[in-house]
Structure formats: C-alpha cells, structure tokens
C-alpha cells in the first residue's frame, strides 16, 4: 500500500473532523489573560511593599552594585564528585524501583502567598545595575565575563556551553532536523564536530555526552575527542546529566513513559535507576530534579528531588510548580509556574530540601519568559524575560535572600517576526 497525495488529503480531512471545539476558547483565553493580569498586578504591588520594607527605592535595583558579581565558576561552583563505590557508599540502584517506591508523594508543600516574596521583573523599573552572572549568546556572539567569541553559525542555534579548556560548545539543528555540535577552541575556531540529537554537558565543561539519531550515546572531552560510547538500542534515548563518571540517560517506551538509566562511562555497565526523567542534576549535592511520568499523579504537576547517592527520592512536591534547574549551590530549584496555564511568564524558586516555595517572579509586561537558570551566587536566579509585549529581551538576576531583581544587560529589541516565531536574540549558556 502506498499513499498518494489524494490519500493524504482525504485522511487528514477525515481525521480532523473527529475533533470538535466544544468549549469556548475565547472565554478561556480572555479569562486566562485576566488571571495573569491580576497576578502581575498583585506581584507588582507586593514587590513595591517589599522594596519599602527594606528601604530600597524599588524592588529591582541594586543587586550586584556593592560587589562585583562572580561568574558561575566561582567558589560557589560545586565540587566535582567522584561517585566511586568507596566514597559514595551506595552505588546507583540496579533495579527499577517498584511503584510503591515512587508513588508516595508525601506532604506536598504549597505556595504560601503571605510568606512568599513576590517580585515583579520589569524593564521599566530601573537602569542596568548588574552584570550577567552566566555566559550567554547575544546576536551570535558568545559572552563569558569579559570574553567574546563569535560563533561560526548564524541560524539554527539550539544551545551553547562553556568547555573546560576555555572553548565553547555550539549545538545547532538544521531545518531537516539534523542536529550537530561543534567544539570551538578559545578563539572560536572549530576543532571537532559530531552528531548530537540530545546532549548534556557537565558543570565544568570537561565532559559532553551526546546521542546520535540511532540512540548511541558518546562521551567526549572538552577537545571533542571521543572517550567512550554506548549503544542504548533506543533512538529516543537522551542524556540527562553527569555525576562524576556516571552518565544518566532517559529512554522512552512505546507508551511514551520515560525511564532513567545510569551508565558507568569508565566501562559498559548500565543499570535502571528510576521511572521518569531527570530535568537537571546537581553534581555537588548529588541531587537530581525528577519528573515522574504522567500516570504518577494524573492531572497534577509533581516533581521529586532524587538523591543520586541513595538512589531514592528525598521528597515529592505536587502543586503548581515545575522546576527545571538548580541554583548554583544546589540548595534551591527554579522553574515555571504552571497554575497560570500554558505560556505563563511567572516562575518560582523552591527549596531543594523540602520543596517550600521561596519566591515568585513575574515579568509583568511580557507574555513569555522563556528561560531561567540558577547561576552566580548561591541564591541568585538568572532569568531572561521578554518584556514590553515581547518586543524587548534582557538578562536579569533575582536574589531570594533580598527578594529583589536587577537588570544585568541593556534591553535588546525583538522583531515582530522573531517574536511570533519565538526566536529570541539572547540565549543562556547550558553551564
């Protein structure tokens, strides 16, 4: 049987007719925007109160003005772990945890709107007062402190990372979906290239793990030399992160359920770790943010903090928060607030120890806040808000201890077309 264009047209039209919009999307969209507007107003007011309480003129001004910010590789950077059997005590578990192990949500910390500092991030609140605490790309140039490296690609940029030798890793994808990573030396000259459908870079940039389209994971050093490889047999396999010599990767079954496995990259041994996938690992604290599969708690948003040494979840949190990153010291996690529905520009910071919500931040006049990351000092969050109705973008830092945010970069314009396509000029480094 060989489909032709007529078959395709008939099938697509036939299947499209199966679906009907039975609700009122206009009411839903207007209602969602109104809820967001209320939240933004509340947060802006809360931020103003916070600012008065600490006798600063505005809640978004002075972080980083007293002392120069330290780069992400400062003393707050995690110590590289060596999770061998002798010092971890417990090797990664070798069996898939039973449902009983993973389905105990425990107490679910929820946001306490009275106690939780709420900070409004806006470009209009003050001048540039800080310095970006994370490496980033702006209009094709990699910025890392005072260093600048022009990237040898102009389109299809998917990610960048610092390498331990001072080089830069550049991840791109073509329109056809072919993903490639390039290893650049410190001057920006390409020294190696490899396929990379998915990749993970460790904190100091000394190890890069990448999968090809057939599901083989390869480990490279900072120079781009391959160190080891593993055939997973799953073309959807993706590296999640590295913990010393252990690489964690996720596989996907036919029903879309994810499972995390470990690979000791000094050899070939692998082991099942846990159902679900790791959003990010923190090497220094030996922790990972675990996203369970949807059947963990249908209709609810949950995550776990997974102890890599113990091979078990420390605690589960369920509610409106979906963390994607750790702060630099691993004491907190940061990610989007999902209670607002899709596309929320609010994000939250929570304790990695007990899940308590510590801060909520919003970009009041932007519809989207596409990325955020823990970086710089221990309690600082770097966020890249899109503001003024998606026509400007900047880098900001928010501090949990002071409950304030600062603008770290002069705002850059986003064209209407790029905004519609969600192509933004600023991209944060992966590490």
């Amino acid at each position, binding site marked *: 049987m060989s489909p032709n264009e007529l078959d395709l047209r008939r*099938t*697509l039209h036939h299947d499209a007719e199966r679906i*009907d919009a039975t*609700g009122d999307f206009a009411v839903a969209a207007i209602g969602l925007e109104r809820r967001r507007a209320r939240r933004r107003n509340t947060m802006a007011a809360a931020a103003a109160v916070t600012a008065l309480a600490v006798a600063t003129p505005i809640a978004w001004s002075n972080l980083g003005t007293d002392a120069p910010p330290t780069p992400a590789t400062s003393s707050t950077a995690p110590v590289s772990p060596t999770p061998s059997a002798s010092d971890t005590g417990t090797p990664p578990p070798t069996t898939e945890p039973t449902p009983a192990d993973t389905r105990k949500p425990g107490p679910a910390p929820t946001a306490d709107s009275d106690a939780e500092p709420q900070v409004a991030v806006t470009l209009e609140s003050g001048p540039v007062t800080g310095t970006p605490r994370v490496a980033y790309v702006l209009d094709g140039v990699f910025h890392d402190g005072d260093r600048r490296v022009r990237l040898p690609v102009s389109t299809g940029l998917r990610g960048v990372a610092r390498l331990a030798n001072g080089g830069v890793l550049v991840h791109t994808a073509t329109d056809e979906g072919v993903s490639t990573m390039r290893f650049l030396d410190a001057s920006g000259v390409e020294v190696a290239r490899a396929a990379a459908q998915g990749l993970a870079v460790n904190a100091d940039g000394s190890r890069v793990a990448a999968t090809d389209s057939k599901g083989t994971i390869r480990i490279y050093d900072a120079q781009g030399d391959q160190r080891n490889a593993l055939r997973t047999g799953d073309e959807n396999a993706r590296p999640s992160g590295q913990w010393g010599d252990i690489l964690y990767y996720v596989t996907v079954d036919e029903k879309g359920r994810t499972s995390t496995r470990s690979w000791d990259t000094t050899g070939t041994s692998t082991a099942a770790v846990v159902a679900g996938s790791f959003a990010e690992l923190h090497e220094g604290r030996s922790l990972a943010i675990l996203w369970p599969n949807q059947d963990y708690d249908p209709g609810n948003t949950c995550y776990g903090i997974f102890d890599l040494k113990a091979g078990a979840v420390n605690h589960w949190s369920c509610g409106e928060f979906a963390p994607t990153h750790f702060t630099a010291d691993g004491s907190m996690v940061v990610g989007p607030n999902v209670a607002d529905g899709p596309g929320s520009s609010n994000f939250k910071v929570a304790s990695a120890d007990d899940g308590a919500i510590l801060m909520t931040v919003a970009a009041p006049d932007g519809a989207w806040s596409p990325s955020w990351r823990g970086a710089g000092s221990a309690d600082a969050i770097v966020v890249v808000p899109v503001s003024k109705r998606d026509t400007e973008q900047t880098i900001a830092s928010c501090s949990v201890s002071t409950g304030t945010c600062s603008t770290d970069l002069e705002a850059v314009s986003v064209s209407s077309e790029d905004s519609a396509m969600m192509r933004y000029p600023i991209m944060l480094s992966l590490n």
Partner: protein
Amino acid sequence: MGKVKGPGEDGRETDFTAYVRARQDGLTRFAYLVSADAESAKDLVQIALTKAYLRWDRICELEAPDAYIRRIIINEHLSWWRKAWRRREVTSSPLVEISDLAATDPPSHDAELWAHIARLPPMQRAALVLRYYEDLSEAQTAEFLGCSIGSVKTHTSRAMDRLRSTLREATA
C-alpha cells in the same frame, strides 16, 4: 504596570470573541493534525489565542489573522521548551472533544494511514498538514515553518518515503 482597561477594551473583547467563535473549530483541528493529540491541540490553541488576545489590536488588522495564529501553533508545537513543559501542564475545562472512530467505524485505510502520520517527526507532519490539509504552496509552507522551500521539499518527501515504508512493513 498592569494593563489598564481603556475605552476600546470592550470592543476589542467582543471582536476577539466573535473571531474565536467563528474560527475555533478550524484552529483546533489544525492543532490536532499538527500535534496528533487532542490534549496538545487544546493547549496549543489556548496558548495561541491567549497570545493573540494580548496583541489583538494589531492582529485584527492583519489580512489573515488565522495565519498568524496558526504560525504560533506550529512554532509552539516545535518548540523544545514546550515539549519539556507540556507534561507538566495542568489541564482544566474540557474544551475539545474527539470522537473515537474506531468504536463506530470498521478499521479503515484512513485510520491506518493516520496512525502512521501521527508517528512522523513533528516537522515532517507539520509540512504534510500545511501542504495537504491547508493546501498551501511550498513557498507558503516554507514561510509558515520559517525554513527554505528546499527544506519543505525535503520534509515532505521524507515524510512520504517514511509513510510508504511503514505501510509496506505493516502490510508485509
């Protein structure tokens, strides 16, 4: 800081509501074909319309607001960011309904072909939907997907090759 309701707000809302009520079926079906999933379709349409509502003053002046909103739907669906987030979203009111043809109709060629279309890589499926459901030209499809005409040809031909090959395997 927050948006102040101006004198034109009510008119804007009425205008937006009228547009959405007239177009929501079409947008939902488009989102369903692009995502191959009813829940994703609902989310994609919600995202697109919420974003459109924010900019309605500008969008309603466009000759083809549909094209703008469909572009958001496509872009959102292809975004890695949303894929990661998708699993975390809290779904609320039932806005879409999907009929289970398998329960009423005998297995058909269409159903089998759709099952294979649904398993295509997102970009290839998007190209097929734009070319054969929306009946867009290769140039229009390229503009929608933000890629070259050559890429559209590649996506389309790879999708067709893949469908032929999987259907051949299924019937072997």
